[in-house]
């Protein structure tokens, strides 16, 4: 492509970047995202630096802000950790939102029909199990389509489209069989019995599921991503990496892509389902099945997973970062900017994060045309 007296060419990087270099590119792209949004703040007559300071100070250094950051961190980290697993095997599960919603449905079913008077130490684990199984089941077709179907990108299509049946199932349940008989006809399920409400720290929206998220991060690290000199230490982790790089080579070496695909999407769907259980039964704003459960955290989780470099520790940090952005958005709003600017702010950063992936794999060469 020619630009004035320069010529631009996009080339694949010939050698893998080191961990440090990829981190640098990611941080730079986030900074560029902030710079791009700064232009919009300037156009509205606000000082972007003051706003950014305000957003981050509120999200991480005030008690209220930090608590609301953490409450968003919980579902985000579970979803993103889960997504990182199939992403490593180059299986694009972009439908975590659907798996998340199915998890909420499964948990609600258990809570509404078996929750009354049950022992919380029994029923809550059962809810998590149901959520995990439902989310995993919802994700299963992705693996089959990815491996067996003849066209590229079928995993993207099927995972995205499975979001809609999940959403409509919730709509059907809360306007139909599960509608709250005492809810004056409004579309929502009855309140969950107290025994099924996951313990939240008093006065906050931070519930015990946060430990589940951290445990999931550790387990994924220990069983899948633990590396020694760049080579995963576990057999499963190794097979995921090899098949992700080159399925044909892996199959020739006796690995089964279908098996790995199924394992990875089951993990990702299951963790998204767990996030759904935590959100519907742990977040004190819910405790009932409602249409507003779908807040597209499943889609945000995609960028979170990539920003974290598909690495559990990186994902914990990037989840905190995005949770902080979501929570800190309120500071932008109360400064008098319209809410669409907050969406633009979050959206632009997601975009720049994904652009970073492009720069990690490719480079742009400039030449002066003589």
């Amino acid at each position, binding site marked *: 492509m020619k630009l004035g007296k320069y010529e631009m060419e996009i080339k694949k990087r010939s050698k893998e970047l080191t961990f440090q270099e990829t981190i*640098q590119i990611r941080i730079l792209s986030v900074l*560029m995202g902030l710079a791009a949004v700064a232009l919009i703040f300037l156009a509205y007559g606000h000082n*972007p630096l003051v706003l950014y300071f305000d957003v981050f100070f509120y999200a991480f250094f*005030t008690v209220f802000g930090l608590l609301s950051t953490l409450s968003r961190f919980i579902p985000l980290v579970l979803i993103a950790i889960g997504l990182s697993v199939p992403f490593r095997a180059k299986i694009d599960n972009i439908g975590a939102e659907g798996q998340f919603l199915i998890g909420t449905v499964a948990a609600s079913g258990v809570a509404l029909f078996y929750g009354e008077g049950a022992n919380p130490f029994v029923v809550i684990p059962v809810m998590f199990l149901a959520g995990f199984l439902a989310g995993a089941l919802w994700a299963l077709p992705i693996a089959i389509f990815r491996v067996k179907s003849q066209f590229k990108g079928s995993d993207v299509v099927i995972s995205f489209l499975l979001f809609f049946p999940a959403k409509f199932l919730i709509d059907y349940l809360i306007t139909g069989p599960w509608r709250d008989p005492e809810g004056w*006809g409004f579309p929502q399920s009855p309140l969950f019995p107290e025994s099924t409400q996951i313990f939240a720290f008093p006065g906050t929206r931070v519930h015990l599921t946060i430990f589940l998220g951290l445990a999931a991060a550790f387990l994924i690290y220990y069983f899948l991503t633990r590396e020694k000199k760049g080579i995963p230490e576990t057999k499963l982790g190794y097979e995921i990496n090899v098949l992700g790089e080159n399925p044909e080579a892996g199959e020739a070496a006796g690995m089964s892509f279908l098996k790995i695909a199924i394992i990875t999407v089951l993990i990702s769907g299951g963790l998204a389902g767990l996030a759904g259980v935590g959100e519907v039964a742990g977040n004190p704003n819910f405790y009932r099945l409602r249409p507003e459960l779908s807040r597209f955290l499943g889609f945000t989780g995609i960028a979170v997973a990539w920003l974290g470099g598909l690495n559990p520790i990186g994902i914990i940090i990037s989840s905190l970062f995005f949770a902080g952005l979501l929570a800190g958005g309120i500071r932008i709003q109360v400064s008098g900017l319209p809410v669409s600017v907050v969406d633009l702010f979050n959206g632009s950063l997601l975009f720049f994060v994904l652009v970073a992936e492009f720069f990690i794999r490719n480079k742009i060469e400039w030449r002066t045309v003589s």
Partner: protein
Amino acid sequence: MTPYLYYCRILLKYLANAKNGEEKMNGSKFYAIVLLGIIIGAGIGFGAGWLMAGTPIAGPDGEMPTLKAGFIYVGPIGDFGWTHAHDVGRVYIDDKYDWLDTVYVESVDPADAGEQIDYLVNVEGCDVIFTTSFPYMDATIAAGERHNDTIFFHCSGYLRSDNVGTYFNDFYQLYYLNGLMAGALTQTGKLGYVAAFPIPELIRHINAFAIGANEVNASVTTDVRWMNTDWFDPTTATNAANELLSTGVDMLAFTEDSSAVPLVANSTDDVYVFSHYSPMQLFAPSSTISGQLVHWDIMYEDIIQKVYLGQFNSTNLADVDYLWLLQEKACELGGDFGVPINPIFIPALQAIMHTDPVLGTISVYDLVMARLNQMSMANIIYEPFTGPMDFKNGTEWLTTGESADIYTLLGMTWFVDGVIGTIPT
């Protein structure tokens, strides 16, 4: 701007690793660029802030006690419907009273409502919180327990507590009046209603619309299309309206927060519409017959004055339920403020005669005005939901002369006779 662009170019160049093809990143160069960026950015930022800083707003008189009110909105304030109308009310009281300061948060997800309420109370220091949508009900009640000294008002809910009151402005009388006009003016005998969600409020309004239409023309039917997507969804609303038109409908009423349905009517001949919530007549000047308008300003003023004077405090709100209708003047008939019926349609309405058992033979125009008057009086002498009235399946609901009480209407989940279409169950 120039140094800023220069900085971006350095970054780009750096990312691209320039023309010498050098793959290895130089750590100190990287940090130098970041540092340089921060310095330049800070310079631009503070410079811009310096230039753009306006004159500080004069604070209220120090002698006067002040009040800060926080509003939680469900949609964007530019929706030209529900949230816009609430914000008009907020701006009105904010401008009118020196002792009042307001702050709002838009497009609040009901899942975040509790958090945003805590934010408004703890960080912004609000004394009164208005939560302006039904899904915030549980969060508002819970917040009331957390913040004992704060006063809460929740719009359209049914739960109250010592420091949580409720308020609502209902339109069913207006829909009934709209129905009278629609029933008189329809050529095909088919009316259509585009409805966002199957909740009691909308069911009540659809029924009122059908009751009005059937009063002047017993053979008229009202068909309903549920959107079930969003309160603001122009695309679905447009599709639903077109679907109704294809069945022969020529009068459209709706409950959705965009101007989609008036625009459909405006672009189709011989199809007429009743504007909803905001003055939407301007979108369909020759197709809008009338409509419903809201005045949250009047209600907010009443509430905030009573709070300021101490009549409402954080212990006595358990029975405070504002349910205002026409008589409190918090809603208005028409597609534009001060225009109850579009003048284009007045001659036609005056030409259609109707025989009423009490009012005798009068024109539909006079009937609408008489009913408006009857329902606007301090002592309401006309109730649209008065028997004899049947359920949709034909069994009797109200006997002759019996009127439905407001609590029955608030929990309405059934259609009356004359409405075709079903309520999702």
